[in-house]
């Protein structure tokens, strides 16, 4: 798969769950709505490999963080709606704080001045 090697997706793997949980935190939504939200707020990081959203949703369901039910969409079609459980909501809080701390640290590292002797400098 050409898409599998695309950098944004690799980066996303770990954080896709977090994005999905966040997307559902405003209320029940079907998969496409989640995809649209991610597309809008992230400047379309999922432009390639959008399908990986679904295994993520199923895994979250397996862990009991989201629940799914079939319902009717805005345009009157049958669609599967996902909803955060209370466990999922708690998980969202935990992951948000973890991610924020991690991102801050990485950002700080990137902004830091260069050090003269890195261990593998000769290589």
């Amino acid at each position, binding site marked *: 798969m050409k898409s599998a090697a695309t950098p944004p997706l690799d980066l996303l793997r770990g954080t896709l769950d977090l994005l999905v949980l966040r997307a559902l935190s405003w209320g029940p939504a079907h*998969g*496409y709505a989640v995809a649209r939200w991610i597309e809008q707020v992230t400047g379309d990081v999922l432009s390639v490999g959008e399908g990986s959203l679904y295994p993520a949703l199923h895994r979250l369901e397996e862990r009991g963080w989201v629940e799914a039910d079939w319902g009717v*969409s805005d345009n009157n079609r049958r*669609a599967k709606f996902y909803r955060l459980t209370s466990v999922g909501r708690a998980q969202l809080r935990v992951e948000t704080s973890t991610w924020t701390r991690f991102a801050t640290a990485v950002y700080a590292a990137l902004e830091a001045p260069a050090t003269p002797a890195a261990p593998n400098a000769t290589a």
Partner: protein
Amino acid sequence: MGAELGFHLEMRRADLVARGATPEEAGRLVRERFGDVEAVAAECRTITHRRERRRTRHEWLGALAQDLRFAFRTLGRDRIPTTVAVLTLALGIGASTVMFALVDGVLLRPLPYSSPGQLVSVWPERGFSVAEVTGFSERSRTFDEVAAYRANVGVSLSGDDGSGRAPDRVESVRTTANLFHVLGTGAALGRTFGGGEDRPGSEPVVLLSDGLWRDRFGADPGTVGRTIQVDGEGRTVVGNMPPDFQFPTGTARLWIPMMMDPANVGAFWGTAGFRVIARLAPGATAAQAREELLRVAGQLRVENPLWTPAAEGYLAGAEVVPLKQQMVGGVRRMLLLLLGAVGLVPLIACVNVANLLLARGLARGRELAVRAALGAGRARLVRQLLTESLLLALLGGGAGVLLAAGGLRLVLRLLPADVPRLGDVTLDARVLGVAFIATLGTSMVFGLLPAIRTARPETSDALRQRSTGGGRRGRLQAVLVAVEMALAVVLVTGAGMLLRGVSRLQHVDPGFATEDVVTARLSPPEREYQGRAAQLGFYDGVLERAAALPGVETVALTSQLPFDQENTTWATSIEGVTTDPNDLPMFDRRSVTADYFRVLGVPLRRGRAFSEADVVGAPLVAIVDEAAARRFWPGQDPIGRRVGWPWANEWRTVVGVAATVRNGDLVGEPPMAVYVPFAQAPVAGATLVIRSVRPPAQLAPEFRQLVASIGADVPVTQVRAMDEVVRGTLGRERLATLLLGAFAVVALVLGAVGLYGVTAYQVGQRRGEIGVRMALGARASDVLRQVLARSVTLALAGTAVGLVGALALSRVLDGILPGGGAVEPVVLLAVPLVLLVVSILATLVPAIRAASVEPTVALSGG
């Protein structure tokens, strides 16, 4: 799955089209964005499946937990029936676990020697001579290695062996030096025999059992290498065996190399009685070994320099059997019978618990009907009921295993020590595993039928009506109780037959008086008391001083005590009667002192007893018994005839005829007996018989002291009442009777409990009906009689079936005790009587309760 992804793809395309893409462009873009649809769908499916499986398991566990909680509540509510059921099961499982542990240890487990499958035992009844053993060892190719032994050889350990203990007489085994190599067992400390210790000129050595090493030498590692006195001969201890080593039985305390010296023609060719065990060569079968054995024996028969045994009959019964079969053959039947008998006890327990559950199921009909009406499927109800049985079984099984642990210790203590392989009997994982499986099995047996019955959703009926307790369910319970009674009858009858058999044997008159006779074995070490003068000097002193002990009337001496296990028989010539020196009649021969017949109360039919005058130098005399007199001199006077042992150049004139007595056992024809004066044929080890009004326990200390003052290194052992000696020969039979009797009582009690339970339940269910009949004029006695009649009928029906089963058992009992399976009228009468009484007792309480039902019950609706 497809629907969800399809919805996504379609929505995306619609969006793209709405933003101005052409349909073709949109289709391509959608696929590009989404990635591999099939792969995503597959991944989603996998996750979903995994989740479903987990949920199913989770639900199942949840339901199980629910069932268990519910079962605990239900069982806790009916505390008395639950307790009865658990105890019933505990008895059943406990008893069968004990028996299985025994059978497993003794019969099933491989022998604790290396490659035990190749070990065989060779035996004609008489055993082999040293020459035969050597011949087999040198000439046969089907055997890898041949060893021989003679078990149960009493030896004296004297006091000056460094142990500081009193002289003792213990059981030893004479063996070829390669025995331990054949068995493949090493010593715990020191070494076993190396292989040459049975050759002439080798240093005398001895190997100790763990028991002897601990008891006599205080488990001192320094014992190895020390010299100890065995039968007055110094022997170097080369090692001691591990605690679990037994050969051939647990009573063997030490092993001594036998002498294999072809130069000593008499001992080499003339001494029979050695048992042979051998290791088969790879690929050889027992049948081939037997064939070769007979061929080699044929050569040896001709080479025998002493005598030429008749060709036919020589080794005719020779057999090569697996060692295990030979070792445990004697107790096999008894153990299997007991195991079978005990197998009935858990069955009865199952029937009992099944009945209990059935009764409870009837009582719970409404509850279950309500649950069924609320949507519980039949399978779910069966499962709930089975969970209850399983829980019952586990509680019962747990209690049963505890019971078995105690019971096994008791049984091991009761079993005679000569039962082979008792050291291999333990309550280990293997036995516990079987007990566990038995527990699960029983829960299925007793639980399934009631569960299916009870869960049959006759919903509307059960909801509408009161149960009347009649109909098919009542019949099933009745049949089960009858079955229970039948099983109990089989056991009670079997125990009854054995009991009669043993008591018949106990009342067999041995032909001599056993009351007020005390016996004591004296074993002067043969080295120190060699020769006539030394032996007679010692015994004269003992006889004289023992006669002076308070309470002692008469004292005598015999070379062999009647009913002692060490008895041997002698081939004896009868002058003018026997002609073929290779076919002589066998006699029990005893050297006895003058008062022997008086002490044991054996009447003399003709002639005289021995006297002080029958000493060395005086004419050689003998006394024969009536059986011999009748056989060899029918219608003539035996006095003055001669009997003899020609190879010893010994002829004796018969001076008296004694009454025939049983000298060996209580069953069958006693062998003929000949008595010779002790003074003319003394032996080193002999047994004192003392007619005394004082019991052995009182006499023993004084007697030991007396012997010690004459010969400090002479062991005094087996100070017993003669009663005990005779009764002791029935130990195994009595134990079988005791165990079977115990199981029978357990079975009977369980049967009675079952009968009580069913009757009580039925009376409870029929209160309304009984009330109506009372109101219509029935008297209390009528009701009482009717309830009793019903249970007595059940019990007697079971008895009839059980007696038929017991007849089948009687043949097996014959194998344990000759005549033990005899069907005696007294047993056939007593058993139904016992059952009648038991059934009435078991029913009395509920019957009285039924008879005291008030007619008004009919109105109030019971």
